[in-house]
């Protein structure tokens, strides 16, 4: 990919002026005409210019390079800039960054949002941006007053020279600041001096999300915009053999029908007509090999695979010897189904392809890829292609796709019909459309020695690889092991001397994708539930056993101790009520949960309460941390109680929220979040509360009923009392 994804300095300046009506600290991105090879060659002032605009009207505009999908980055990232800038927080506005190499992810390179990484990967850079801005404003004031910079100070958007009682606002200094040389020796604040970071600051996007003004991709309106609904194959991987447009054309409002890579796009002047047209199309499909896919048959295939050796992900000690000399041996099979992400906003994308330009508006987690694919389809030079990131009505991984399919659909359709087009997926398209969390079959065995200590752990995982066959394969798959398939399984924190983990990655026509917490959405279920099985076999309290085995893992331990200390662990409960716990580290954070449940005689499970403790290192916005813990818990609970995608004759058997159910208000447990005070390395928050939830609930059900759930979603029939 070329070093620059194409925004000229002029267009930047124009955009800047349109927003704030005046300059600004420079905004002189060194892009005019020349290619910049790597962002790391840029000076701190260049980078500050890319992220920060200060208007002569004192407005502070912070460009945010990560996508807002609910996780709060449109507030937490600006907080980091504002802290070091010492500006007036009430003047802060945000704008989604365009696509440019300077906005690339500091760890992954590409401009993208994922892996619960936005905050910790911007922690240094964005504080530097704010500190650089402040240093340039102080330098500008010092020059204006002909005093030393050391004799000036900045506070709340104003630079003061106390000795002469002079002051100037940032807005008044902006033009002069632009001309100041790149500051050297920037020092960042001592955390004890933070005024914004660490405080429960209100989200900047809340007001617009309560009055209908927030603009998601599906809300984009431009002149002459048409809407397209795509008729896609009923079997994943299928192709169009032939089609007739007569019936679809007869629907009022239908303007054009074009074949694109994923199916047939019916273009109309509104969604309803486009959708009716898409349904009315007569299509003959070539189903391909996928027509044989059947959930039950696939289960047999996976079970067979689990009995043969797979690619080795972990081999510590000698598990076979340890197992054969173990006093107590346990074996279990855990299974989880394919899951759709089902974000509330169905996928969509607006594209306006013209002879000399292409504009794309969409809620995406992967701007660099969308930009590249639009350039490729249109044949336009990179700088003529503009990707505008809107708000995302939920992401959960579904909007970070390796093949840019929802952007391709819109760009291909707009190019074909020579008009701006919005492609909208129906909910049925979303549920039928693949890109699921893979189905997994886990076979696990463990052994206890004569003192009831776990000595052997053998875990075999069977499930499709997410990274295989995508551009991510190179850095995610090593020696046949997709790291996303085994994360949370190959790095079990417990002190068990002999551990063996292997993996089978069968191929399928079903496209699969990261689903909030990725490997964390299944491996910890097996690990944390099977550890409880071992605890029960050993006659040990599951909490005490974990403490014994977590030596050398202080952050796991602290989170677990905090959650348990808030949970009345061990206190008596009514009949068929139970508590269960789980702890898991992912994305650099450590989360423990205690779930309290009851199970009715009919087998119905009610989750009363979840106590959640999180150690994510230094906290930027504690209210956002709390919101994300609760959010992950709900997302995971939907899967525990309801989530399931199944196939018969290659067809997905679920269609919409009536049979692919999501947690609703009446099922919502109380949630209590406790943050471990921590100065350790910062981790993520967006996904990290998902992994412990399912095992905590399953362990609580065991405590309540003595029955072990090993298959999700929960089948009430198994729990009748």
């Amino acid at each position, binding site marked *: 990919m070329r070093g620059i994804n194409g925004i000229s300095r002029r267009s930047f300046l124009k955009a800047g002026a349109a927003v704030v009506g005046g300059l600004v600290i420079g905004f002189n991105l060194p892009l005019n005409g020349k290619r910049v090879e790597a962002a790391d060659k840029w000076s701190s002032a260049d980078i500050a210019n890319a992220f920060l605009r200060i208007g002569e009207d004192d407005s502070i505009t912070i460009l945010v390079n990560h996508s807002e999908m609910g996780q709060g980055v449109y507030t937490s990232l600006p907080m980091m800039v504002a802290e070091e800038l010492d500006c007036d927080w009430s003047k802060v506005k945000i704008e989604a960054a365009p696509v440019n190499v300077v906005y690339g992810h500091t760890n992954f390179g590409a401009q993208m949002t994922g892996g619960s990484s936005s905050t910790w990967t911007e922690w240094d850079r964005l504080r530097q941006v704010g500190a650089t801005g402040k240093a340039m404003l102080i330098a500008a004031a010092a020059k204006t007053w002909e005093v030393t910079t050391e004799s000036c100070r900045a506070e709340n958007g104003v630079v003061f020279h106390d000795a002469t009682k002079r002051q100037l606002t940032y807005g008044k200094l902006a033009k002069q600041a632009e001309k100041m040389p790149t500051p050297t020796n920037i020092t960042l604040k001592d955390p004890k001096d933070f005024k914004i970071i660490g405080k429960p600051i209100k989200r900047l*996007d809340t007001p617009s999300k309560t*009055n*209908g003004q927030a603009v998601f991709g599906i809300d984009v309106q431009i002149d002459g915009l048409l809407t397209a609904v795509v008729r896609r194959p009923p079997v994943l991987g299928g192709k169009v053999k032939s089609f007739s447009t007569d019936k679809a054309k007869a629907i009022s409002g239908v303007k054009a029908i074009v074949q694109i890579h994923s199916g047939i796009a019916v273009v109309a002047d*509104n*969604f309803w007509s486009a959708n009716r047209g898409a349904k009315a199309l007569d299509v003959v499909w070539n189903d391909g090999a996928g027509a044989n896919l059947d959930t039950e048959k696939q289960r047999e295939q996976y079970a067979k695979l689990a009995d043969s050796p797979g690619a080795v992900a972990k081999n510590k000690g000698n598990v076979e010897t340890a197992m054969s000399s173990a006093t107590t041996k346990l074996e279990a099979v855990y299974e989880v189904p394919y899951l759709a992400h089902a974000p509330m906003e169905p996928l969509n994308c607006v594209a306006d392809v013209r002879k000399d330009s292409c504009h794309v508006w969409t809620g995406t987690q992967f701007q660099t890829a969308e930009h590249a694919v639009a350039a490729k389809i249109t044949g336009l030079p990179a700088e003529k292609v503009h990707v505008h990131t809107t708000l995302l009505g939920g992401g*959960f991984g579904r909007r970070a796709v390796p093949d840019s399919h929802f952007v391709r659909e819109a760009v291909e359709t707009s190019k074909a019909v020579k008009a701006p087009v919005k492609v909208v997926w129906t909910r049925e398209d979303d549920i039928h459309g693949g890109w699921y969390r893979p189905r997994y079959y886990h076979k696990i065995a463990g052994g206890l020695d004569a003192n009831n200590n776990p000595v052997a752990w053998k875990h075999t995982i069977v499930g499709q690889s997410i990274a295989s066959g995508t551009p991510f394969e190179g850095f995610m798959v090593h020696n046949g092991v997709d790291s996303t398939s085994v994360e949370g399984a190959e790095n079990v924190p417990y002190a068990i001397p002999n551990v063996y983990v292997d993996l089978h990655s069968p191929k399928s026509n079903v496209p699969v994708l990261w689903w909030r917490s990725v490997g964390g959405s299944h491996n910890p279920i097996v690990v944390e539930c099977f550890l409880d099985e071992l605890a029960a076999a050993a006659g040990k309290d599951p909490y005490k056993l974990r403490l014994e085995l977590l030596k050398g893992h202080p952050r796991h331990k602290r989170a677990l101790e905090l959650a348990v200390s808030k949970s009345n662990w061990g206190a008596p409960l009514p009949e068929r009520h139970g508590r269960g716990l789980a702890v898991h580290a992912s994305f650099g954070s450590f989360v423990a949960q205690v779930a309290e449940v009851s199970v009715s005689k009919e087998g119905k499970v009610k989750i009363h309460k979840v106590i959640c403790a999180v150690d994510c290192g230094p906290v930027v916005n504690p209210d956002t941390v709390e*919101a994300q813990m609760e959010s992950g818990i709900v997302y995971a609970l939907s899967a525990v109680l309801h989530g399931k995608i199944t196939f018969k004759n290659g067809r997905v058997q679920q269609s919409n*929220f009536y049979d692919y159910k999501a947690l609703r*208000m009446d099922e*919502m447990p109380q949630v209590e979040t406790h943050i471990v005070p921590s100065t350790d390395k910062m981790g993520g928050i967006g996904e990290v509360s998902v992994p412990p939830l399912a095992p905590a609930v399953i362990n609580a059900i065991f405590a309540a009923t003595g029955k072990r759930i090993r298959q999700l979603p929960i089948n009430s029939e198994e729990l009748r009392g």
Partner: protein
Amino acid sequence: MVKLKINQKKYEIDADPEMPLLWAIRDKIGLTGTKYGCGVAQCGACTVHVDGEAVRSCVVPISAAEGKEITTIEGLSSDLGDSLQQAWIAEDVPQCGYCQSGQIMSAAVLLAHNDKPTDEDIDDVMTGNICRCGTYNRIRRAIHSAADSVRKQKGEN
């Protein structure tokens, strides 16, 4: 032509009378605060008020809404609407925010009928609105606090 009155404003819609109200509101009139989530009255993202009652606009044909008072999130500026929006902001309810128009419109009808809802009352009404981000507990708190301010206003009047 189907005549609709939305947020006190009159519109003549040139569309099939069977077109769901949602798509007339979004695609014909251009008010995009009302959201499409499922198309089958399962998720509540498209909730609007028709003659003061919460309806799922994705399944109501425009012909059935003719001559009625329709209110969308953009038109909810009564004291009740203000109380709800302020409570939503105070609790920082939204995450992705996509479902929140529908949540607020459902809550508004609940409070119009019942200014002191119990948790069960809230469950009964709000269970029709899905939030995939899991903001349910904050929605519950916001409804209780909006109810408090609604009652306070009534007491003062």
